Structures are given as C-alpha cells and as structure tokens.
C-alpha cells in the first residue's frame, strides 16, 4: 500500500511512518500542506493520511483542493481535533474517514484497509459468503453452515457489516459511524453489548468462535471453522 502522509510534527510522523513500514506500507511524508498537495497531484497513492492543523494550511482546505483538482485517492484525516463536531466538519469537507489522536495502531490499520477496500470499489453480491457464514443481503437473512440464524434488523446490519469487512478488524468507531450513524463514543458499553448479543446468536450450537475481540480496538469476524 502506497501512502502519502502530510504531518508537520516530525516525531508523530516518525512514529506513524515506522508503524506503517512495519505493516509493509510505502510511506511518502510531506511536512507542509502545499507540498502534500503538489505531491498528491504528481503521484498516485492508495490513501492519503492528512493532519488537520498544519502550519501553512488547514487540512480541510487541502481536502477540498484535492477533490477540486480531481485527486480521488481516499483521505484519512488524522487529527488532534477529535470532538464529534470536528469529525462532522471533516466528513462534510470530503474526507473519507476521520481518526482522532491518540489512536490505536490496529484501529488506524483497520481504517486504512477499509478505505482501500472501498476505493477499490469492491461490491458485494446479493449473497456474501465467508467461511461458514452466509449473508443474504436482499432477503436479510443470516446462515452459519447452512443453519439459519435469527437476527433482529439491527443485528443483521451488524452482521452484514462484518461480512462486508470479513477477516478485517472492525473498530468500535467504525461500527458507531456506519451502523448506528453516530460520530461520538457514548462512553458506555453499548457497542460491546450489541456485539455480544450478535456473537451469542452466531455461536449458538457451534464450538468455534464467530467474532474475536481485538483489545482496545474492535472485532474481527472469523471463518468460524
């Protein structure tokens, strides 16, 4: 994965660049917004990671100018401004995802992978199959090893989200944002509880786990085998 990272803080850039390099990513780092814009126009990147508060330019302005100039690489804004209103502003300005500092490395990777998947335009057929699991999108039904799993409408939305991101880490923030349309963390265990209910239904009658918890980050759908 080739990434452009625009960040004015050298320490933060070094930390993240090292993290991404460990994950096998090729990172191009620019310190100034104007240089980031120029680089984005000259080269092709899988994803652009953008700090919001840059000394020469606001990150939101950079996104708007990128979009105006036809650069359609997905943009992840990585910012110290992490309030719900900041996230809404970022998404309204055209960023594809918004992650507040400090962040979990696994969460960052999960989001980057999700962005790349979305940018590649992977579309899902009417039936998504992963390991023992089947998701019949139109019929809104779930199966594990051909056994029907009765889910409530919201549980089905959750299951479908996991199936669309099968094998990848799905973070709590991603679930809140994409399933419950919330841009803030309610600070209670509502996500964990709902995941727990889904997990119980998917695992009832089976030995192998359906969902694994990634500490501090989120969950991953297993193949169930």
């Amino acid at each position, binding site marked *: 994965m080739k990434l452009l990272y625009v960040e004015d803080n050298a320490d933060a850039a070094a930390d993240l660049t090292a993290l991404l390099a460990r994950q096998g990513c090729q990172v191009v780092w620019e310190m100034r917004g104007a240089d980031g814009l120029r680089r984005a126009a000259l080269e092709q990147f899988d994803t652009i990671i953008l700090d919001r508060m840059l000394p020469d330019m606001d990150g939101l302005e950079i996104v708007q100018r990128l979009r105006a100039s036809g650069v359609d690489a997905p943009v992840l804004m990585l910012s110290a401004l992490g309030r719900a209103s900041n996230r809404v502003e970022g998404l309204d300005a055209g960023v594809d995802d918004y992650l507040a500092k*400090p962040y979990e490395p696994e969460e960052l990777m999960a989001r980057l992978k999700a962005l790349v998947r979305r940018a590649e335009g992977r579309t899902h057929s009417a039936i998504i199959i992963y390991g023992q699991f089947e998701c019949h999108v139109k019929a809104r039904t779930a199966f594990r090893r051909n056994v029907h799993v009765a889910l409530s409408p919201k549980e089905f939305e959750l299951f479908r989200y996991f199936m669309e991101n099968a094998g990848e880490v799905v973070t709590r923030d991603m679930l809140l944002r994409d399933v419950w349309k919330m841009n803030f963390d309610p600070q209670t265990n509502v996500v964990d509880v709902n995941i727990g209910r889904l997990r119980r239904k998917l695992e009832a009658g089976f030995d192998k786990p359906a969902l694994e918890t990634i500490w501090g980050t989120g969950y991953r759908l297993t193949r169930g085998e």
Partner: protein
Amino acid sequence: MASSPIIPASRSIFTAITRRATLFALGALALLFAVTGWQSWSAMERSLLATVDTDIAGLVDIYASGGEGELLARLEDRSSVVSLEGRQARYMLVRPDGTPLGGNVKAWPTLGAGLSESGFLTLADGTEVFARATRLSPDLDLLVARTYERDRAALVRMALLFGGTALLIVLATWLLGRRAAGHLRQRIGAISAAFRDAEAGREPAGADDLHDDEIGELATYSTRAIGRSANLARTHRHMSDHIAHEIRTPLTHLDGRLINAMRELPPECDPAVIEQCRRDIRGVVTMLDSLLDIASSEARVGDLAGLTEVDLSSLASDLAELYSGSAEEEGVTFRTFIEPGVTMMGEPMQLTRLISNLLDNALKYVPRGGQVTLSVAKGPVIAVQDDGPGVEPSLRPLVFDRFRAGQAPSGKTSHGLGLALARAIALRHGLRIALVDSKVGAHFMIKPHALWDAGPNPGETK
C-alpha cells in the same frame, strides 16, 4: 453593502409609511379642495346677493319717486347692461296675480315675493341665475336676477387647477416616498443581512453605511457588534482547537511510547500498569473533549447556524434500540413512549448525544431489577425517568454542574460532565433541562423555555 433585503416591499414598514403619507396627503388636499370650493362658492353667492340687493334698493327708490312707468323704463334700460364681472341683469315686474308688466324674464320663478325670497334658480328659458323677488306695493312684485356663468366658469377653472396641482403633489409625495422607502429598505436590509449572514455562520459582508445619520450610526454599531461577536467566536474556536491540539499531541506521543514499551516488555512483566496508563490518557482526552463540547454548546446558544429539521422520534427510537441491549444486560427494564412524527430544528449528532448522555446516566445509577423510561412527545418534550436511588435533595441544584459525579451503585466512575453537556446541548437548542420531582428515582425532563414558562414544574432545579 450586503445582499438585498429579504422582507418584501409589501411588508416593509417604509412602504406602509409611504402609503400612509400618500393617503394623508390625498385626504388633506381633498379637504382643502372642499373647504376652498365652498368658500369660493359662498363668496360668489354673497357677491351676487349684494349686487341684486343694491339693484333692488335703487329700483325701489325709482318706483317711490317716479312710479310704475318710470320703473318700467329703467328696467328696460338696465336689461341690456352687463357688469364688469360678466353678469347680465334679468328683471320681471308683475301683478301679484302673475300678470306680467315688463322686464326680460318671461315667466315668474318659484320665489315668493311676499317673503322677499332669494336663491339660485333656473329660469324658464334655461338661464341659470341668482335672483331675489320682492313686493314693491300690494299690487306690484319685482324680480331682480343676475346670471353667473362667468363666475362659475372661473370657479371650475380654479377647481381644475387646484385638483391638478393636488394630484401632482400626491403623485410627487408617492414617488418621493417610494424612492425614500426603497433607499431606507436597502440600508436597513444591509444591516439585517449582515446579522443574517453572521447567524447563518457566513462571513458577514458588513453594513458599510457611510451616511452621517441615525441609520448610518446603527450600521456602524451593528458592524462593530457583529465583528466583535464573530471575532469572539473565531477566537473561542481557535483557542479550543489549540488547547485540544496542544494537549492531544503530547498525549499521542506518550501513548506511542507506552505502546512501544508494551511491545518491548519482557514476557514475565505484567502490562497492566501500562494499560492503565493508556486508559488514563484516553480518560483525559475524553474529559477535555467534553469540556470543549460544553463550552462550544454554551457559546452557540441562540445560534441557528447548522440547525436542520431533525426527526426526534426516529432518532430516539434508534437510540432506544441501541440501549435496549445494554439495559437487558444490566438487568434493567427499558421502556419507551415515543410519539411518532416529533420533529425539531437541531443538530442530529448533538441531540443524539443529549439523549444518550441521559440514558447513560440512568443506566449507570439504576440497580439490577430497576426500570428506565425514555419518552418523547410533541413540544418537543423529552424525558428520561428511572426508579434508581435518585438525587439527594442537597445535590439537586448542582446536578448539572461540571464535575458533579454521583456514586454509582455499580462502582462505575465518570468525570461528571455528562449532565453538564446535556444541559449545554439543550440550551444550544433553545431547550431547558430540569430534574423534576418524582416519587422515586430521577426524572429528567427537557422542553422549550415557553413550555416551562407555561406550566412551571415545582421540581425544576435550573
């Protein structure tokens, strides 16, 4: 100048003033016309009366001195006289039984000579005259009249001139008033537009009115006030952003170092302390965000920018679905009474957070086996009620203050900012939240100020 006024001309106060001024001018001129016309007509009548009476006085003298024959001769002489005013003399001398003796009037009109009556009348030949009839002797009646066509023509000319001038004055008043009204609308509209832009979150164009008058002064002060307000909002925002940035950035580095430390930790060492440090970092960040959110919401009270129509019923139903699992997990009965179709102007995410904070609060304090109720009704009226331990009377007035966390039975801790943020969000949306009286537990109610004022609740604490 900013954009043109939004108030249409038909509703403008200046248009109304112009309309009233025009109608007043029209009425005043019509009254003046009527009074002047009546005065002119009266003057003409008095002049005709004086002429006729003087003529009769002379003829009476002639009759007294020369008798009937002399009188007839003089009447004949005077019949052809036309005065300088263009009035022609008309006479008739008759016996009381109507027998004509002389004069240039062919038939006696309806005037009574015995009573010496006078007035305007039309003779048998169609001539309009002012006449007086008088009895010279028991067997002789005299009619003396004067035509007044030229007097009347002069009056009509004067009326036309007056009316035309009056219409021109009214038209000029209307046109000048309309122009002045349009000018004033533009100037006031520019001031309103500057306020409107500021309220909608746009950069106000500024009501750059350079006139040295009251509106110019109003525009100057308005521009300064808007500028100060916008600058204050900008400064507040920049300050908030910088505080967040300058605190989060070093915490991010610290968190990164802790992650590295965990990675390099020998297998025999317990990472619990480091994990706790990382949780503490997140706690500080969450607290900081909540404080900034409270400040931001309080700073935006009355600001309509960014508000959209929100389906509160749908929003509450989604939240209820999200929280029903948590309630069940906690062994708490969660009930909802959500009236369909309740809408309001607001920020969906903020309203979601408001209700979510109240539900979090209720679920935190209600013990297993308890009950939490969420209700939404038109108004809007939002209520979250529980049958938990409630709030101690001494703490009730402080419940919405920052850092006022109670002791949850579950032992869960918090920064005590959830209700302070709920209050700030409510105020930002023109709502007021209160902890109202209830027999058991806590009962939080949110509704618009007007509804509280209409029926104040005895348990309202804020």
